[in-house]
């Protein structure tokens, strides 16, 4: 077993048997985590590779690359590992979280605004698992709800993931990073 080189991208080993870097998550573990925790089907990631750069930071990438790789970024950061409770990123759940069926908490408009602004809030109604949840709300449904656009109205008013929240003791803590937080009006 060798140590993790935090300065470069290394592709995750497919399984435990192929692991040669201490403490590195495997592709199997990552895909299983998204399936077990959030119900995101494993096939979602069939065309993607997973990489580690930095201590425990996992990246999901859809293009071509060889391992190891010393460049600035590939695809997007998706998950923080090498800690007891793995934590998905806000940008990952926005990109892939529509496929989630479990550990998704639906927020009312005022709650969604507070969440996007980075605020923590008491939400008593959640009776699912504690820990990291996907916070979601309905978009495309306004007070007037007028039809519009240039295509078919097939996906209006669907649930849309906002970001990752940490739910403990009746409180939902927004994990939206500072640079992504916004004060929204509606």
């Amino acid at each position, binding site marked *: 077993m060798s140590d993790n080189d935090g300065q470069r991208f290394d592709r995750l080993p497919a399984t435990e048997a192929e692991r040669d870097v201490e403490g590195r998550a495997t592709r199997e573990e990552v895909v299983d985590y998204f399936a077990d925790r959030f119900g995101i089907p494993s096939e979602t990631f069939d*065309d*993607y590779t997973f990489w580690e750069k930095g201590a425990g930071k996992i990246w*999901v*990438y*859809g*293009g*071509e*690359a*060889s391992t190891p*790789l*010393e*460049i*600035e*970024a*590939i*695809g*997007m*950061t998706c998950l923080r590992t090498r800690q007891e409770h793995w934590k998905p*990123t806000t*940008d990952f759940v*926005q*990109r892939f979280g529509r496929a989630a069926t479990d550990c998704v908490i639906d927020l009312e408009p005022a709650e969604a605004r507070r969440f*996007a602004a980075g605020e923590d809030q008491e939400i008593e109604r959640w009776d699912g698992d504690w820990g990291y949840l996907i916070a979601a709300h309905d*978009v*495309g*449904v*306004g*007070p*007037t*709800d*007028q039809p*519009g*656009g*240039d*295509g*078919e*109205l*097939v*996906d*209006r*008013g*669907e649930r*849309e993931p*906002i970001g990752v929240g940490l739910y403990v003791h009746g409180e939902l803590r927004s994990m939206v990073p500072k*640079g*992504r937080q*916004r*004060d*929204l*009006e*509606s």
Partner: protein
Amino acid sequence: MEPLERYRPIIDDFEDFLAACRRPLGNAVRVNTIKASVDRALATLEAEGLAYEQADWNPRVLDLETDSPGSTWASFHGFTHGQEEVSAVPPVVLDPEPGERVWDCCAAPGGKATQIAALMDDRGTVVANDNNLGRISALRFNAERLGATSLAVTNADARNYSLQRFDFDEFDRTLVDAPCSCEGTIRKNPDALDNWSEGHISSVAGIQKGIIRRAIQATREGGTVVYSTCTFAPEENEAVVQHALEAEDCRVVDFDLGLEHAPGLTEWDGETFDSSLEKAARIYPHHNDTGGFFVAKLEVTA
């Protein structure tokens, strides 16, 4: 506006041109189809009570009526990205297909690179390079917010770019959205002409020539290179493409553009350019009420 006087002989309706340059631009956003269909993005904006107008030439480009286009739910979800209307032109001219290898050699802050990824349904490899490490953080931020998983971000000088870091040794298409004197951004940045000088134009043209040559070398035979700038100066536009025609194996090709524009020039300041440069497009602010832009499409011939 003084520096723009040199273009009086080549721009029709020059007074209209100057008047347009003095008018500020509206807020343009591009719908990011990696995260939402056009329809879903529009429904989201409507639900927020935001009015918009779709561009005639591209339904993904919107003129948005708001003072803060970055503080909408549509933007928070990455359904929209603030991007000037003409800035959405080069990726459309590049016309990439899913699965291809594409190089955006001057990519920060990433509006065009993520648009390329969206046009490829986020499938394939988009190498987004920039030589400025500071601007790469903005590129990475935008790529993640817009959900572009096909992007590989590198920090290098495009003029001597090495493909050794990848498994492949040539690209299918390359976008050279070159650093330039930015005369065409005067409506967005009123001080864009403050440090204008012919000396600056001449030095930036030297860099542009180095980048376009490397772009052609790194693109496969039959592949496409699009060269664009946001400036009017022929020294940075037709003269750079002319240099590429003389130094590399390529030719200028036609493309369709749904925006009003003037043809590229075949002479400037005593210098003549290949007649094929008429196939390039000069987009002036008074044509479509946008910023100014230059676009040429090249086919690599060996």
